[in-house]
Every structure is written in C-alpha cells, then in structure tokens.
C-alpha cells in the first residue's frame, strides 16, 4: 500500500513541476503577496506633500512649518499666496494636505488667545485624508507644547499612550499573520480542489475509480504534496516577515509551526470538500475564490476590524477558519502567549477540520454521479 501511495505522490509531483501555472501560484504568489502587502497596502506614509498658505509669514509660522516637516512624514511642496490656489494642488495631485495659518498666528499663540489653524485635506480618499490630518494634528499639538511648555501647567490633563506589542504601529505586524493565513488557504484549498477537479475534467478520475485504489488513498495522495509545499510556504512567509519587515516571533516557534500545520490540514480538507462538489477546474476555482479567498480576506479581521462590522457579518467572520488562525498567530508572534491562551481558537480550528474531513468523506463519490 505504501508503494502505491509513493507512486501516487510521485505522479502528483510531476504534475506540479510540469505545470508553470501551478508553480507560479505556489511560489510566485506568496512572495508577491507579502511584498505587495508589505510595501503597497500600508497605512504608513513618508514625505506626504503639503502646501502651506501662510498669512502670518512671521517667525512662529516658519517654525511651525519647520516642525511639521521634522518628523519625515511631511514635505513642503509649495507656499501658497491666496485661497484660490488651494484647490490647484489637489486637482493636479501634487499635494495631499493644505495648512492655512492665519495672520494673527504668532500674536495669538504667545498672547494666550485661542489659536485657530485650518487643515484642508483631499476627501476623495477618506482613509488617507484622515490619517494625514491626524498626523498633522499630532505634530501641531506637539509644536504647541514645545513652544508654551504646557507640561509645566499642573492643571493640564496629560494623556500618554503606549501601543503595547506594536509600539510603532508597524502595519507589517498585522499583515504578516494575515498573509500567512491567506497564502496557506490559497495554496492548500485552491490548488487541491483544482488538482482533483482536473482529474475529473480530463477523465483520469474514471480510470482511477476503476482500479483497486481506495478513495481515501486517492485523496491522501493528492493532498500530501500540497501539505508539504504549503508548510514550506508558511515558513517562507515567516522568514520574509522576520528579515524583510522585522516582524518578531516572541512566542514558541514550535507551537507556531504546529498550529501552521493544523491550519494547513484545515485548508486542505476545505479544498477536498470543494472538489467533491465541483466538476471542472473553473468551477473549483470560482468556488474557492468566492467561497474562501474573499471572505477570508474581508471578514477575518485581516484588513478591516471585525468588531466594527454589522452583527451579521461578525457572525460570518466567526465561521471562517482564518479568523481564528490570525488570532492565534498574533498571539504567538506578537504577544508571545503560550498554548493555554489560544486553547479556544485551536479547538475551534480542530473542530472545523474534523467537520470538513467528515463531510468530504461523506460526499466523496465512489462512482461518477
């Protein structure tokens, strides 16, 4: 029996190595995805261009503009001379934010009168505009504190925030666990469902069924190579995350790898389940993209926080394996928690896996219909 299994796996490896598309998905996708998420999809920004409409043109307004640029987040693009010029920069796309400083800025600041400044942002890109305004606000408050030594005022409420586990709010800390969850899902679920659907589409499943091969062996033989490859990919993403983006692994590496393996099995069992109900490769592809990829990306808390979603979507999010896997990964990698803290998530994953395997076993057809 083991000899047959070996022959089956060998055949599967030939399929993978001889198909450029599979190879590309297998090894191109993880690298592309982590680099895209790492460099492109990020909330951080550097050197955002701002215009300044400075009516004051005095010492203090110059200092303010200097101060705003000092963090490296902003770069002065143009000094405007009239209100009419404000929109020009937005329309041309050369500036993202305009700071308007009133004529009385210096006098008000030191004369203990309320100071008003105006920030104008390009609202057509709300997320970006929001972030820019917040950064700018922080810089302005900081400037004010520095100038007036407000900290010495005993009646002032001081709020100090500290972001535990990710003090600098580096987005890589969020997307590396998310990317691992997605990549494992794509490779394990999509590729296995595709490869089984391919046997059906090309008619080879007919011959495999009319042979002494037990159905279980057919599934295991198909799944085993992908399990190994998916696991290698998980390690690849962890290594990339660690060395390229500096994402730490504070908790136990062994525990992390074991959980990765469990999640790989969850995804594989989902893939085989999809393949039992799809007849063609295209069918399998659509089902895994629509049914797995997109929900896992949107509803797992990877990109958008689950807590701020409508209740219905929150429930949906809670039946997605990736939600639990991402929670576990963040726990182990960033907070360094041990097994007893992730017990709930692990048992949910395990339960889901058993459920999918059982369904696959029930649904696997020993005949063509």
């Amino acid at each position: 029996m083991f000899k047959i299994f070996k022959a089956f796996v060998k055949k599967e490896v030939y399929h993978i190595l001889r198909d450029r598309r599979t190879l590309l998905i297998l090894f191109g996708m993880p690298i592309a995805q982590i680099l895209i998420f790492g460099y492109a999809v990020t909330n951080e920004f550097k050197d955002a261009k701002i215009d300044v409409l400075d009516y004051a043109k005095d010492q203090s307004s110059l200092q303010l503009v200097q101060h705003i640029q000092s963090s490296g987040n902003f770069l002065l693009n143009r000094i405007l001379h009239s209100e009419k010029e404000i929109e020009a920069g937005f329309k041309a796309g050369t500036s993202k934010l305009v700071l308007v400083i009133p004529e009385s800025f210096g006098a008000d600041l030191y004369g203990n009168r309320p100071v008003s400044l105006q920030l104008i942002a390009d609202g057509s890109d709300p997320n970006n505009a929001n972030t820019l305004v917040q950064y700018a606000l922080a810089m302005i408050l900081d400037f004010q504190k520095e100038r007036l030594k407000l900290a010495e005022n005993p009646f002032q409420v001081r709020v100090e925030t500290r972001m535990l586990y990710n003090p600098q709010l580096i987005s890589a800390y969020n997307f590396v666990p998310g990317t691992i969850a997605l990549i494992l899902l794509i490779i394990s679920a999509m590729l296995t469902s595709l490869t089984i659907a391919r046997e059906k589409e090309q008619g080879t499943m007919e011959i495999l069924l009319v042979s002494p091969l037990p159905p279980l062996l057919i599934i295991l033989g198909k799944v085993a190579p992908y399990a190994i490859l998916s696991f290698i990919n998980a390690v690849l993403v962890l290594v990339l995350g660690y060395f390229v983006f500096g994402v730490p692994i504070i908790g136990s590496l062994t525990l992390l790898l074991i959980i990765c393996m469990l999640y790989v099995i969850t995804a594989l069992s989902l893939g085989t389940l999809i393949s039992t109900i799809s007849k063609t490769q295209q069918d399998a592809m659509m089902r895994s993209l629509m049914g797995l990829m997109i929900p896992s990306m949107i509803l797992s808390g990877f990109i958008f926080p689950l807590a701020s979603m409508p209740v219905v979507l929150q429930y949906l999010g809670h039946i997605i394996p990736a939600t639990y896997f991402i929670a576990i990964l963040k726990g182990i990698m960033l907070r360094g928690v041990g097994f007893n803290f992730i017990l709930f998530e692990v048992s949910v994953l395990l339960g889901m896996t058993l459920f999918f395997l059982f369904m696959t076993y029930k649904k696997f057809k020993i005949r063509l219909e």
Partner: protein
Amino acid sequence: MVHFESVCPLRSSSIRTSWNRLVMQAIQVDNISKSYGKISALKSVSFQVEEGELFGLIGPDGAGKSTLFRILTTLLLADSGEGHVAGNHLLRDYRKIRRIVGYMPGRFSLYQDLSVEENLSFFATIFGTTIEENYGLIKDIYVQLEPFKKRLAGQLSGGMKQKLALCCALIHRPEVLFLDEPTTGVDAVSRKEFWEMLKKLKQKGIAILVSTPYMDEASLCDRIALIQNGEILTINTPEGLMTEYDLPLYAVKYDDTYQLLKGLRKMPYTKSVLPFGDSLHLTVEAETPVSKITEYLTDLGFENAEIRPISPTVEDIFLELSRRTESKND
C-alpha cells in the same frame, strides 16, 4: 438460483462460486435500464459475453454505448436490471470488478503531462504490479511505443495514444477488457493494427467488449450487438447478421442521384431507398423482379440507370433494423 440463495444465505456464496465456475460468462447483462432525467439512455438491455470472446457493440453516437460501459465498469448505477462481470455482481462486488477489469474510456484519459513510461508504470503500480511482470502481454504493442517512451503522452499521435491507453488498461492482466470506441479518431492503418492486437489478446483468453461507431469493423468481432437509442436491435455473428436481411437489395446508380432518389421513393415496390456513396441502396418487397424496377425507371426517364443486386453490408442491416424498430415503436 437467485431463489435458492435467498432461502439459504449461508451457503450461497460457495454455491455461487462453483456455479459460476461451471457456466461463468465474462459479462452477463440482464434487463439493464438507465435514464438521465427524462432521456432514457438504455432500455432494458440484455446480452452475454462468453469467456475469451471479442464482442462488438455497434451503434451511432448517443446510442447508449458509453453509458453501458460505465455501468459495467461500476462507474454508474443502473436504474434497474442486474449485471455480472466475471461472475461478480455489479453492485455487491464492485471492488472485485474494479480489480479484474481493464477499462479504456472513450476519451483519451491518461496523464498528458506524464511520459509514456511514467504513465505505464503509474498504472502498473496502482494495480499492484510492475511493467516487467506483465511485459509479455503488452510486448507486441509496447515495442511500437518504446522509441517514444520519454515523450509526454499529450504529444503522441492519435494512434499512439490509443496504443498507450490499451497498454495501460492491460498492464494488470485483466480478465475482461472494456474498450469504449478505441478506434474513433484514429487513422485507417492504425485502426487495422489495433484490431489485430485485439485478436491476439483474445487468443490469450481475455474477453473483450469493444464499442465502435464504424460499421465496417463489425466483421472483425466474434459476435456483435447493434444498438440504437438505448435498445439492442439484434445480436448475432457477423455472418449470421447477413442472413437477417431477407429482402432483395440493389445498388442503383445514375448521374443525378437526387432525382433518382425522389423517383425511387415513389415506386410502389420500394421498402426503403438510401444513399450510399455515389449510388443508392434500394430495398424492395420480396419477389419483385428486376425487370419491374427497370421498367419503372425507364418510364420516369432514367434510361441509363445501372441496377445490380448486392449483398447487404452491416450498415444496410443496421438501417433496416432501426427502421423496423422505429415503425414498431410508433
């Protein structure tokens, strides 16, 4: 026997085995029916294939041949009726059947991205054997493939693909071989070679059920069943089939075939008239003298029409039988 089994279930299996050994048919089909929704693909089909027999299933596309193959290879379940392959019940013993039959589906179903050698050795392994062990059986076929053994199966010519598929279906020394349209899409020379291989396999004691849409291949089988619209029209030896055609048959030839066809259709003695190549095959009522036909044709102005009596081809018989069945069903 069925009755006896139900009375005495304990002893049934041993009795069945010994009984089967005595009168075991390679394939036994009893009143098998199958429909897909409203379309009925097989209507109460029955036949037997003896051990070591080359049995041909001949009929056009959509006659139900592939459905029958899939039922006999346990890939589909019949709606009603029973069947045995080498004494094994289609439903109860499906695992046993899957071990002892060789199946070559109608569509080329090997791994196109594996080489000739890799395909063959994969199928040998999953049947728990090796190429070397059964090399004797496939040697005649495999020597032709050997020069291309490193080539990917997808890059082989049509004839070569079929030979490889046959090798893969044979590699575990099956007792019964199911070949679903093995010569479709294959050139004339390869088709001839293929049938010669089947003859050799038959001599080695393997029962073969082969389907084909080509009527001219019928004479190469031991026995044939003509099948149309899920019904078996007749089962006979190729020679016996010829005697089933009991009406006079003539080939009629004229420059304007279409006008001739129209004219002959109106002739009172005509039973059927069908175009075959550049002439028409005319069946008339029994004991109609040729002179009457000539007379009729001359009256219509087809003076130079050439009439000669011919013996029927399988196609003639097929068309005549299907015509009779249709009129019976109406």
